[in-house]
C-alpha cells in the first residue's frame, strides 16, 4: 500500500458537527463506565458484606472527594444511557436524516446535561 497517499480525513483540522461530539463522548463514557464498574461492585460488595460495611459506605458518601468520584461515575453512566437510548430510537427508524440526527443529538445532550445536574444535586445537596 502506498504510504504517501493523501489523507483527506484529518479530524483535527475538520470542524465536526454536534453528532460527532455526542458520538465520541458516547465512546469515552463507555470506556469510563467499564472502569467505574469496579467502584460500583466494590460499593455493592462492602455494603452487603456486613452492617459495619454498610455504615462505612454511608460515611464514605459524606466525603467530598468520594462524592466527586461517584458523581463522575454516575454522570458517565447517565450520559451513556441517554445516548444509547438515542441509538435505540434511530434503530426504530426515527431521526435518521442529517437534520433530525442533529436535532436528536442536541436534545440528548441537553437531557444528559440536566440529568448530570440532577445527579449532582442528589449527591451533594439531598
Amino acid at each position, binding site marked *: 500500500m502506498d504510504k504517501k497517499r493523501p489523507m483527506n480525513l484529518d479530524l483535527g483540522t475538520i470542524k465536526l458537527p454536534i453528532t460527532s461530539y455526542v458520538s465520541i463522548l458516547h465512546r469515552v463514557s463507555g*470506556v469510563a463506565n467499564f472502569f467505574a464498574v469496579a467502584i460500583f461492585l466494590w460499593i455493592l460488595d462492602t455494603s*452487603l458484606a456486613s452492617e459495619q460495611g454498610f455504615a462505612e459506605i454511608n460515611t464514605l458518601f459524606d466525603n467530598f472527594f468520594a462524592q466527586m468520584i461517584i458523581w463522575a461515575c454516575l454522570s458517565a453512566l447517565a450520559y451513556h444511557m441517554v445516548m444509547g437510548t438515542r441509538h*435505540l430510537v434511530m434503530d426504530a427508524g426515527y431521526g435518521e436524516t442529517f437534520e433530525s440526527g442533529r436535532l436528536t443529538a442536541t436534545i440528548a445532550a441537553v437531557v444528559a446535561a440536566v440529568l448530570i445536574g440532577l445527579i449532582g444535586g442528589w449527591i451533594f445537596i439531598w
Partner: protein
Amino acid sequence: MVTSITSLGRSGLSDWLLQRVSACIMTLYVLFIVGYLMLNPGLQFADWQALHGSLPMRMFSLMTVLSLAAHSWIGMWCVFTDYVTVRLIGPKATAVRIFFQLMMIAVTLLYTIWAIDILWGI
C-alpha cells in the same frame, strides 16, 4: 484486516442485537436501583440485604452482570479495532490490540465472578 475473530458473536448482526438487548436489561436495572434508593432515603442494612438476597433480585442482578460482560466486550472491541490500528499506531498495532483485548476480557471475567461471589455470598 481480520478483526472479527475477537468480536463476541463473530458476526456484526449478532453483536448489534446483543448490544441492544444487554443495554435494555442494564438500563432497567439502573432505573430500578435509582428508583429504590430515591424511595428509601433512610435505607437500613437489613432492607438492603433482604432486597439483594431475594431470588428475583439475584436473578435480575446476574442478568445485568452477564449483560455487562457482553456489552463491554462488544463496546471495547469497537473502540480497540477502531483506534488501535496499524494506520494510527504503527506495525505493532495488532499485537498491542490483542494484548488490550485480552486484558479487557480478563477484567470482564473478574467482574462477572466478583459479582456472582457478592450475590451468592449474601
